[in-house]
């Protein structure tokens, strides 16, 4: 074996991640449960479950359903609110030598800003603003599907945020490039995509919706081709970094997103198959770089275009 050691650091909005692998919000809690399985310091960043200004109870159950190579979820953003989050979850994550990205949700601009202001006092490294949760709406349409709303909320968040801001985009749109450009125009430091595709499953035996909320968000390998396409389109539409996700199960899958134009990737649903999934993805990227004798992971970002 050669003593070849590729560089895996990537930089997003001035923040350096030791490798391009993060956890997808909502699939990893605040890391505590997975911290029992592996050393979170091995990840580029931990992205937390969405947190709101107050505790949210979430949706009724069943909240999830399996679908071919994927799953639907309508957790409904259950979370303990920013107070508990700051006093319990951030100190837990501070033990680890990894970046902490806090995913923020709200029902209204004001609720987002309440969270963003509170986080300004903390040492969270970045904020990820979830404007794409299909289960949370303002005036009937999801925030994330109207470019004007995306630009406006991005600008409002940027005004209050002390940390770099990642806008997390919804894939349930006609043209993802328009949304990415709106985020960039509003001053976003990066965009992440994709959130889940809205889907539905019917239990034909019980003649009812498989999840109580009727619709849920589709994630997992099933959506990977849509995610790769959107990451490719977004990364060609904006000059801020793109963080890619959607069905990443292995290092090879992650490399696909990097080659399509993502500067970093998030691993989500894969954790439900293997609690070590994000670690394995990080190791898989490194193994790929070694096998191909690629010196620096940044060299493959956007290489297929």
């Amino acid at each position, binding site marked *: 074996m050669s003593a070849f050691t590729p560089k895996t650091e990537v930089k997003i909005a001035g923040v350096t991640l030791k490798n391009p692998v993060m956890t997808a919000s909502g699939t990893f809690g605040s890391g505590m449960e997975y911290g029992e399985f592996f050393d979170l310091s091995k990840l580029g960043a931990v992205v937390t479950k969405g947190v709101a200004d107050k505790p949210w109870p979430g949706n009724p*159950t069943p*909240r999830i359903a*399996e679908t071919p190579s994927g799953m639907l979820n309508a957790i409904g953003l259950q979370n303990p609110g920013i107070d508990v989050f700051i006093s319990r979850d951030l100190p837990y994550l501070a033990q680890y030598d990894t970046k902490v990205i806090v995913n923020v949700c709200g029902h209204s601009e004001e609720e987002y800003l309440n969270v963003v202001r509170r986080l300004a006092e903390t040492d969270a490294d970045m904020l990820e603003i979830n404007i794409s949760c299909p289960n949370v709406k303002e005036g009937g349409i999801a925030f994330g599907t109207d470019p004007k709303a995306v630009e406006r909320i991005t600008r409002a968040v940027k005004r209050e945020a002390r940390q770099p801001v990642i806008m997390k985009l919804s894939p349930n749109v006609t043209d993802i490039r328009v949304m990415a450009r709106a985020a960039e125009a509003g001053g976003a430091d990066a965009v992440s995509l994709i959130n889940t595709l809205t889907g539905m499953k019917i239990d034909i035996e019980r003649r009812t919706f498989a999840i109580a909320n009727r619709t849920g968000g589709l994630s997992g390998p099933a959506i990977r081709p849509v995610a790769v396409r959107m990451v490719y389109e977004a990364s060609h539409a904006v000059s801020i970094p793109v963080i890619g996700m959607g069905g990443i199960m292995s290092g090879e899958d992650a490399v696909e997103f990097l080659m399509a134009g993502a500067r970093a990737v998030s691993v989500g649903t894969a954790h439900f198959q293997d609690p070590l999934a994000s670690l394995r993805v990080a190791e898989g990227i490194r193994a790929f770089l070694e096998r191909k004798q690629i010196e620096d992971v940044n060299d493959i970002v956007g290489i297929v275009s």
Partner: protein
Amino acid sequence: MRHETAAVVFQETIAENIKSLVLRVSFADEIVPGQFISLYSADKSRLLPRPISICQVNREAGTIRLVYRLAGAGTREFALLSPGDTVKVLGPLGNGFPVKDFTDKNVLLIGGGIGIPPLLQTAAELHKASFAVGYRSETYLYEDMQAIGDVYVSTEDGSLGTKGNVLDAIRENGLHPDAAFACGPKPMLRALSAWAENENIPLYISMEEHMACGIGACLACVCKTTEEDGHSHVKNARICKDGPVFLSKEVDLT
């Protein structure tokens, strides 16, 4: 908690559509009765784990026994496993029944439908356990229970024991235990909850919900609680992590 590849030691059919599967695992000696494990499909189109209760533990042999009903594609896949095969598992998961606190008490273990399996190991770790179990018609695990304690049976069709449900059997046999541990369908748990309150005894119930992570991270598997839960503080506890066993008074079964 271990995520590992378990070897299949033995599998057999013990009743119509009910399988008994013995696996070799590394964590047999850590198990608390009432805990469960997640089983993973080998077929890549099925991503989510199947939670299955631990029915019996053989700590010397390092094996566990699972008893499960063929419900859908995942359990039908597991039904094909035979010695020599392996299956990915995650466990042990959840809290389990509080056997330590009730070792010498008269505990009635109540099971309905496919809720019987976790009661076997639980009974083995109590000194004075008896069973009240409800079947639709065909019985399973009946001899295993009889080997441990008295078994009061109810069947829907009256083919064995009391005709009716477990509560009918409990009443017919005039049972007044010090405590009860139950696992089964929600309507049964609801009825038992009222009964236990009336009897003024503690009732521990094992809950079920669809699961993704199995370890408390994704918040898929919550049940409503009467008080604020310790994790999200929104009266929604995680069955996989805070449960599956709850004191019946803590859970809002409506």
